[in-house]
């Protein structure tokens, strides 16, 4: 059994990875993102990034976590119905900047950590850049 094939079992999933467009995708049901980060750490996988998507019609957000395992690109999607997800920063320091960036772009909360501004300047508001339906207070005032 390859390392890749052993991952679903380690994560308690009965589903195998599905390879699509060069990414090995694994959808995790009840597992939380911190358990995933711990398993990735144990395999010495390299954290790459988190990609955030806003779903249509107030369905929430999808966060795709990516790790590299010996050149293989792994993807783990998580759907958020609310506005928050647990931070993995304390388990994976490489996730620091991207969690801060997503917080600023989409106004999502990564719980269990503190933020310092990354891209934002003093007086800027979170969510204005990429979250639909968020306007700056200046723009609202102008209307």
């Amino acid at each position, binding site marked *: 059994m390859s390392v890749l094939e052993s991952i679903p079992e380690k994560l308690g999933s009965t589903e195998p990875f599905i390879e*699509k*467009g*060069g*990414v090995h995708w694994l959808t995790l049901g009840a597992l939380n993102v911190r358990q995933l980060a711990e398993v990735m750490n144990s395999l*010495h996988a*390299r*954290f*790459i*990034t988190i*990609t*955030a*998507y806003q779903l249509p019609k107030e369905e929430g957000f999808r966060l*795709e976590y*990516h790790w*590299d395992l*010996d*050149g*293989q*690109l792994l*993807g783990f999607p998580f759907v958020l119905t609310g506005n928050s997800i647990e931070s993995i920063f304390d388990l*994976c*320091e*490489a996730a*620091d*900047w*991207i969690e801060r960036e997503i917080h600023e*772009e989409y106004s999502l909360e990564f719980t269990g950590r503190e933020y*310092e*501004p*990354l*891209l*934002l*300047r003093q007086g800027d508001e979170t969510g204005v*850049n*990429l979250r639909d339906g968020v306007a700056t207070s200046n723009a609202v005032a102008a209307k």
Partner: protein
Amino acid sequence: MSYKIPMGPYHPALEEPYKLDMICEGETVIDAKLHIGFNFRGIEHLAETRNHIQVIALMERVCGICSNIHTLTLCNAMEKLTNLTPPPRAQYIRVIMAELERLHSHVLWAGIAAKLMGFKTMFMTCFEIREKVMDVLAAISGNRVNYSMNRIGGVNRDITDPQAILKMVEKLEGEMLRTVIPIFTTSRTAASRCAGVGVLTHEKALSLGVVGPVARASGVPQDLRKAAPYAAYAEMEFDVPVQPAGDVTARLLVRALEIMESCKILKQALSKLPPGEIATEGEKFVFTTGTGTARVEAPRGEVMYSVSWKEGSRNPARVHVRTPTFAVMPAIRWMVKGARLADTPLIQASIDPCYSCTDR
């Protein structure tokens, strides 16, 4: 007694705006905090308002140094959504452009590093050579910075006379072998400014997930051209230089050796350039609903694009860009800890940072 010294966001030692707040005791840096975002342009948001042709021109402007790499990664991602495969000649031309861009990026960096070392003649030499690399890029693409070479399903311009380009590359390689490589690998000036300075340990490099030459200079042998080959890299023979020391010298050596490996790849690609079309001409395509993800080894390390599209839509629903400097920059904090204040401009430059890429 400790005191704070801010460097930036606009400072003679920085090529672009960012800020490093350093806590010092005497001449020693105890800790540092980084601030970015001064160049933030909201390009990912803009991409959602562009069609599949316009978005290529837009993403080419994420970076002024590795503009070709951004369109290459974007096109690779969009080709996954359109099920288009570029013909072999186009794949080779993509390799040639990517390696020329690596050459010009590494030589540019070498020049800036030489300037920060106080090695002004080397700075001038590097920039003279860089001009010649850009002449080759202009001979192929007609442009010096934004080459407009990549398109979905291939490239826009052919290399009509590969032998002429090969001669230019061989001449360049000779100049690098005579000047840049021996000076950077043996010069006492370079060694005295760089050895043991700005160390990023192997463990910290792994923990921070750094990429590219910075990772390879800390003994992490990762290179997507080998680990997950794209374009025609699977057909090229080359080595991945790795140095274990993790200091500025190691970063210098890795890039110097990579210059020679790039020349090796260029010579192979130009002499084996296959005949045929340069794009999937006349083939109609539609975007399928889903996400296309692609990774490419840019001069500074791994670039990753995730492009999300809805079938029938004119514009992408989302374009996410993870640039190499975004992954590498947090390491500066660990590199400057314990360093002399006077070494910090060189240390931060040793990662070859691109703030334009980082801020997007």
